[in-house]
Each structure stands twice: as structure tokens, then as C-alpha cells.
């Protein structure tokens, strides 16, 4: 049994069981890839070809016009400017939200695990509970509070909201990471006269770089994919790509242009997919770390 070497040599005998196994895997591959394939071929067809009702056929002639329309001309209601502003909005929302939430979460995790000031466990418990509760219960008071301080429907407002709701998960991941750091490291630095912030910036943050990468990816994907918070807090001028995509597809007047819709859908999925495919193993580490929070 070479169980400890899953990538070892292929077993030589071909049994019915082995064949069944590969058949199952290939069917699964079809199930998982057909939707992506369909999106891509649909986005490259003309509407005339789509009306033939052959969703799986390859385009007879590659037509990229749906992509340009999706990017710069698709209509949301009566406004036809494409999804590009959503792309830039999503970047403007996501990058500062990720940077801020990862920084604050890292400081939290470090303080909660290596310094444990009074009330640390209470705070941690509150954060974890807050992370489990559906957003709907926070929304209305949050809207009112944001409006009072003039942040409702603003870029700063939606970034703040993402940082707030990102804190539970980010703090948890960093706390779990720093808990495994030997406490002596921190103690030795303190004997040398280093304070809270110096130890953080000069020792702990450099150690935690892998975690920073994992958490940043997790947060980037999560915030990019957010729909609800962007819809409620971002305001018309800052609507993220997901919200604009839904508006393009589901509030169309007249005939639906499926090729444009699919091109816009792919464009919206492109950033998280790029992160996933370029950093596969890191992404897996991130979701595995996020999943054990139960």
C-alpha cells in the first residue's frame, strides 16, 4: 500500500473498478466545466447564432463585439456605459478594504494571542459571534449611523463596512497563526526593550507573511464577490461590478443580449478566477484555514 505516496506510480492492473472511477471523474469534470465552456462560447457568438438554440456548439465565426459591448456599452436600465466603471469601482473598494482589514486583523490576532490584555477573550468571543450573524440584522441601523456621519453612499463608507465585517474572519486566522509562534520570541524581544509595535512590525509581521498572503487572497475574493453590502452601502457612483452585472443582466428592457450578458459575467468572474488559477495552492490553504473556524 503506497498510501503515503498518492502521486506515486500508477497501479498497473486495469480493473472494472478503475474504469468506473475514471468514468465518474470525467462525468464530474463535464459537470464542472460545461458552464464555463458555455459562457465562453456564448460570449463569442452573434445573437443570430444564439437564437438557433445550440448552446453547446462552437461559434461559427469568432465575434468579439459582445466583449467590447459588455465592457463599454452594455445598458443598466437606460444608462449604457458598460461594466467598466464597475470594474474600477470594485478595485477602488477591494484594494483598500483588503489592506485595512488585513492590517487591523493582524494587529488584533497578534494582540489577542501574544499579549492577551484584559478582556481579550471576551472581545474574541464577541467578534466570533458577530461573524456568524446574518448581515440583515445590522443593515438598517448601520445605514442610519453611516448617514449620520456622512459616510452612507460613499467609497469610504463601503470600505469601512467591508473592514468591519471582515474583522471576525481575519482576526481569527491571524490569532490562530500567532498562537503557534513560540512565546519566548516575544519575551526575548521585550527583554531587549522592544515595545508592542516594534515587535509587531519587526518580528511578527515578517514571520506572518505567508498568512498575510493567504488572508489577503481570501479577503480579496470575498470582497470582490460581495453583492449585498455593495448594493446597500456603496451608492450609485460606487456600485461594485457584481451589482452592475446583475443590473445589466436582469433589468434589461427589450430583447436580452445573451452574448453580452455572458461576456459581462466572465469579466466579473475574471479577477477571482485569475487569483484562483495563478495561486491555486495558496487559495486552497486559505479556504482550508477559513473552514476550520467552526
Amino acid at each position, binding site marked *: 500500500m503506497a498510501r503515503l505516496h498518492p502521486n506515486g506510480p500508477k497501479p498497473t492492473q486495469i480493473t472494472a473498478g478503475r474504469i468506473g472511477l475514471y468514468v465518474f471523474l470525467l462525468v464530474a469534470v463535464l*459537470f464542472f466545466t460545461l458552464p*464555463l465552456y458555455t459562457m465562453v462560447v456564448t460570449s463569442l457568438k452573434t445573437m443570430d447564432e444564439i*437564437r438557433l438554440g445550440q448552446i453547446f456548439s462552437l461559434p461559427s465565426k469568432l465575434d468579439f463585439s459582445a466583449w467590447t459591448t459588455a465592457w463599454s456599452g452594455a445598458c443598466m436600465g437606460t444608462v449604457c456605459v458598460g461594466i467598466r466603471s464597475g470594474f474600477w469601482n470594485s478595485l477602488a473598494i477591494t484594494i483598500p478594504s483588503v489592506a485595512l482589514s488585513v492590517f487591523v486583523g493582524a494587529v488584533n490576532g497578534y494582540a489577542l494571542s501574544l499579549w*492577551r490584555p484584559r478582556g*481579550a477573550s471576551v472581545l474574541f468571543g464577541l467578534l466570533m459571534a458577530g461573524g456568524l450573524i446574518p448581515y440583515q440584522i445590522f443593515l438598517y441601523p448601520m445605514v442610519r449611523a453611516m448617514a449620520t456621519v456622512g459616510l452612507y453612499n460613499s467609497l469610504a463608507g463601503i470600505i469601512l463596512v467591508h473592514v468591519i465585517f471582515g474583522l471576525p474572519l481575519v482576526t481569527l486566522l491571524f490569532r490562530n497563526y500567532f498562537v503557534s509562534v513560540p512565546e519566548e520570541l516575544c519575551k526575548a524581544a521585550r527583554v531587549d526593550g522592544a515595545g508592542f509595535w516594534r515587535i509587531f512590525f519587526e518580528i511578527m509581521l515578517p514571520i506572518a507573511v505567508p498568512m498575510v498572503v493567504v488572508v489577503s487572497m481570501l479577503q480579496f475574493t470575498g470582497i470582490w464577490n460581495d453583492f449585498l453590502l455593495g448594493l446597500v452601502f456603496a451608492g450609485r457612483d460606487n456600485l461594485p461590478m457584481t451589482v452592475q452585472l*446583475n443590473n445589466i*443582466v*436582469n433589468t434589461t428592457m427589450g430583447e436580452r443580449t445573451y452574448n453580452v450578458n455572458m461576456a459581462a459575467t466572465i469579466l466579473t468572474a475574471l479577477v477571482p478566477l485569475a487569483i484562483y488559477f495563478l495561486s491555486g495552492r495558496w487559495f486552497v490553504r486559505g479556504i482550508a484555514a477559513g473552514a476550520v*473556524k*467552526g
Partner: protein
Amino acid sequence: MKRKTNLSATFALLPTWLVAVVVFIGTMAWSINLSFTNSTIFPSSTYVGFAQYAKLFSSAKWLASLQNVLIFGVLYVGGCLLLGFLLAAALDRKIRFESAFRTIFLYPYAMSFVVTGLIWQWMLNPTLGIQASVRSLGWESFVLDWVVNRDLAIYALVLAGVWQGAGLVMVIALAGMRGIEAEQWKAARIDGIPVWRIYVSIILPQLGPALAAAGMLLAMGVIKTYDIVVAMTNGGPGNATEVPAKFIMDNLFGRQNLGLATAGATVLVLGVIMIVAPFRYAMHMHSKARGAR
């Protein structure tokens, strides 16, 4: 660390304290308070006891949305666990190109619910989607009209959801399977136990805690289900795919029925507690039992 010199640590945690107390506790208390008033567009301070809850549970739409989320939740969580476990077990059998398979099974999880909903809305489009393609192959009576069929629309959501979430379970289950000792395999194989029995009777029980954590994660997502419904069916046809989170959003921002919406949100929070509490208890007992060993 000594307690007296960590002023900086206390100070560094102040913003988070503020978030925890003001946002998590404060706004929740505010919402729950509103659910006992007759607030409509604006908050009112006229308390009406449980009237909003009575109204909520006599609303056909709310009851339909509860039923829908229950059906969706059971099938979605069950489907993800089953498919994810099967995929993990298959990949555990010394497969060629394992990492390519893994990449393919997990990629939907990187995409948003909005994207997932729109993809499947298109695939299941009754006039131009899969149904039309299969019919043109000669199977004229083929029907795949889930998204527009009142009785089946909820299953369309399940299909899309499982497509998106099964990879997560696969990753967690596969990690668990790789942690099982080779000795157990040897012993079971010497006893002549068939491979599928080993997976069901020996490996599955050991993966219990990991799968329970994955299931809980998915169940939490079920309660929050909103985006995928908005993108794919917008609650229709009729009330066939209405869900509680959407009911609350509609009443908060569309119908301006604050009291009813906050009552619904309070019920959702209770739902979360009902899912989390038994899980926490089980985990607690589990670790206790381990400690006693």
C-alpha cells in the same frame, strides 16, 4: 506576558472593541428593539409587542420563503457533502492528474453567487439553453424548464449551489483522508474488506468532525442566501424561490416595512443560534471525550 505594561495592546484593540460593541451588539439591539415597534418607513417608538412577529408568520410570502430555504438548505448542504465526499474519495484512489482534477472541481468556489446564478440561469434557459439543444438532437419531449417552473425552480438553485460549493467539501474531505494512517488501510485490506466499505465504515466516521464543520459553514451560507436568488430567479416564479434574507431586504428597502423586516432578521439570528448551538455542543463533548481518553 505581564499584565501591567500592555497599554499599547489595549490601545491597539480599541477600534475592534468599538466595532464589537457598537456595530455587533449595538445595531443588533437596535434592530431587535425595532421589531417590537410599529415602524414602517421611519423608526417609531410605539411598541406593539409581538404583533410584527404575528404578522410575519401569517404572511404567505414569509412562510413560503421559510419552506424554500429549508428545502434548499437540506438539499444544498446534503448535495455538497455527498458530491464533495465522493470526489474526494475518488481522488484519494491514486489518480493520474489529481491536481488538475482538484483545480477543476474547486474553481466554481472562487466565483460569486451572482456569477453562479447568472451562469445557471443561462444554462437552464428553456428557449435557448440545454433544453433546446437536447430537443434539436431529436428528443422532442425533453423538458428542463426548472427556472421557470414553480414546482422545480428551487431545485435549479440547489443545482447551481452544489456546483459552486461541492469543491469546498472535497478539499476538506481530501485533507482528512490524507491524514488517515496507512496502518488502518493495511489492516482493513488484510481482512478483505472491500474498498467502498472502508470508505463508508472506517473513513467516513473519522472525517465526521471535519465534514460537520464544512456542513455548518455551508448551513450558515444557506441562512444568508440572497445573491444567488436575486441573480437567478429573483424569487420567482411566484413565490417559488423567495428566501428569508430576500424577504427582509425587500421589506427594508423596497416596501419600507421596518418593523416586519427587523422581526424577520431577528428570526434569522435565532435560526443561526439553532444551527450553531448543537454543533458547538457536539464539538465541546467531542473534545471532552478526547481529553478523558
